[in-house]
């Protein structure tokens, strides 16, 4: 009994110390804001873990936005300071991060994290603290079904609408020419699956026959069996709801089985700069939807591409553009409302974004009451060694090639 008593004492001492240590860790940000103070923007990003690679693009986009804005004198005459925390690709952490940013670090603004899976939990924190929450990555339709009032997705379209132009094009084709059977393979991820299933719903309604409908977990590395199923179905058209590497793996596995579709569309992979090399330069005719191209004619885009190249030495891609767009939306709201701090100001910002159109690098954006953007994605196709816009007709750089050559 004696020893257990001592243990108790130790435990008590330890608990007390920890309580004090935890308490001491937090710095109480003083509420008084002078105009010289920077505007602190809090972000949680997956700097490590499974989403860390695509998360980097978002980080670059935010950094580019802060730099470009600051070089022009900042917002409301104040400099922008980014405070980025690592969520380790984990939902528990992402919530703790926003909790810390809002409650402990007292940031003035928050913007969204990366990956749809993390957007809903973090948006709830922002919502419950009454913060404006513009986000670059939560494209799945479920995000907009949670009743959030402060959330806005800063891109032209949600995942299910990415292929809208392609669906219209295929449905408009003469019945004897269009592909009759379609195979779908999608990663079990709300975003990737959303793109493929958005197209599937539209094509099925128009009488295209679904012959394969495969969903694979994000950790899948061996695509042999999925490819075997697709190859055996001899589908005319292949739709991949993919991110990057899974799309490449599936294509290589299909090449190994000598499967040749007349049309192949993948959501994430083909826009990646390493795509061509990864599938042995047999890219001709591969389709992909995109919400952004560096060549887009919008006013702010020229500045973005130019300065992004100067900062990072490469062209921005969709993730970078979406993060930059997020910054543009927040900046527009802050400028219009004339304030950037926690409290009543946030309500003004939210109301402004609901009521107005914002000019961004991906075009003019407006949102419905749930924060869903009201646009569609362009469709690109690999032609002669580079990727070109083929749909919709008014902005196309080339004609859509059908059927696609063998890979």
């Amino acid at each position: 009994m004696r020893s257990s008593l001592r243990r108790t004492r130790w435990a008590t001492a330890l608990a007390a110390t920890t309580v004090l240590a935890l308490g001491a860790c937090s710095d109480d940000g003083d509420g008084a804001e002078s105009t010289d103070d920077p505007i602190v923007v809090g972000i949680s990003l997956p700097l490590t873990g499974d989403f860390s690679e695509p998360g980097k693009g978002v980080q670059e986009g935010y950094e580019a936005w802060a730099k470009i804005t600051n070089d022009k004198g900042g917002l409301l005459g104040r400099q922008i300071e980014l405070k980025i925390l690592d969520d380790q690709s984990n939902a528990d952490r992402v919530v703790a991060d926003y909790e810390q940013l809002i409650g402990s670090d007292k940031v003035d603004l928050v913007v969204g994290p990366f990956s749809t899976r993390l957007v809903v939990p973090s948006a709830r924190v922002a919502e419950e603290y009454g913060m404006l929450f513009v986000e670059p990555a939560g494209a799945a339709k479920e995000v907009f079904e949670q009743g959030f009032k402060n959330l806005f997705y800063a891109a032209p379209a949600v995942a299910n609408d990415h292929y809208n132009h392609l669906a219209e094009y295929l449905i408009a084709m003469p019945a004897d020419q269009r592909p009759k059977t379609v195979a779908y393979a999608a990663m079990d991820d709300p975003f990737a699956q959303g793109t493929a299933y958005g197209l599937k719903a539209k094509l099925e309604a128009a009488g295209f026959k679904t012959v394969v409908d495969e969903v694979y977990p994000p950790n899948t590395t061996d695509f042999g069996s999925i490819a075997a199923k697709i190859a055996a179905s001899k589908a005319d058209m292949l739709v991949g709801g993919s991110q990057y590497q899974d799309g490449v793996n599936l294509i290589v596995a299909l090449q190994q089985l000598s499967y040749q579709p007349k049309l192949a569309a993948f959501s994430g992979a083909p826009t990646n700069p390493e795509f061509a090399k990864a599938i042995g330069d047999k890219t001709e005719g591969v389709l992909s939807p995109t919400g952004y191209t560096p060549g887009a004619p919008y006013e702010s885009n020229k500045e973005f591409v130019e300065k992004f190249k100067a900062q990072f030495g490469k062209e921005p891609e969709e993730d970078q553009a979406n993060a930059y767009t997020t910054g543009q939306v927040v900046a527009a709201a802050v400028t219009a409302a004339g304030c950037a701090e926690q409290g009543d100001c946030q309500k003004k910002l939210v109301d402004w974004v609901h009521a107005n159109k914002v000019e961004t690098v991906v075009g003019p954006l407006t949102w419905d009451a749930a924060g869903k953007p009201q646009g569609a994605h362009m469709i690109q196709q690999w032609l002669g060694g580079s990727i070109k816009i083929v749909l919709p007709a008014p902005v196309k750089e080339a004609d859509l090639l059908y059927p696609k050559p063998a890979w």
Partner: protein
Amino acid sequence: MPSAGLVFQSVILGLLLGGLYALLAAGLTLYFGIMRVVMIAHSAFLILAAYLAWWSHERLGTDPLLSMIVTVPLFFGAGVLLQRLLLSRLRPITLTMMSVLLTFAVALIIEGLLGYAFTGTQRRIQLSYGSASIGLFGARIAVVKLIAFGLAVVALGGLYLLMKKTTFGWALRATIQHGDAARLVGIDTGKVAGYGFGLGLATAAVGGTALSLDTTIYPSLHWHWIGPLMAIIVVGGLGSVPGAAAAAVLLGLMQSLLQIPMGTTWAQTIFYLALFATLAFRPQGFFGGRLAQRF
């Protein structure tokens, strides 16, 4: 409903996959046989070897298979050290449980260091023959998968010969079967156990290289290999190398065939269902292996 062609193709894919499973499970079986250790870090070493193969291809431009010249001896040495310096120092009475935690810690360290060195980006070796395949009665066999399977067969065959035909193999088998008796006839069981561990880890080097030829790798991938491999060694009968090999091929085949009606995710559950069924109805495993009853 599935065509005969698809079934045949799936059988081929399943057998090729099963071969790789067999090689990887062989290492785990060795550790368990030698000192009742469940080696969680085995698949982390597997991914490490795959990364080294990828890295040598990326940096030096050599064929990934050549990386084995370095990784196999390196892993053998690491295995010996792991056994001699860490595992043999654990208390015998809690060895099985504590070794799980210790090797778990090793797996975490490897994963963290891989992430630190190579980031979380998914990697894949781009080979000129990556998408090449040969035909067989209407089915296609990818060249890279065939090479991986060949590596597994050669390594397993080598292991078999080593165990059956050499003095070291004799001593190793004696240590596995009855450690005390082996000591009595003058075998230095401590040393033999260390080399046995090295041997097990060397199979991870071969397996990792085979793996790197045709799949994507990333630091946290090892978690997805642990489960199936653990299931295989239990179904095969803990401690029995041929049993594990038979279970590996059978389960690989079943996984591949079940994917046709059930899809990728559900098909993976076969490993765990087989594991639970084995423990419920035949705890000693379905393919011999008498150790399992008590462990």
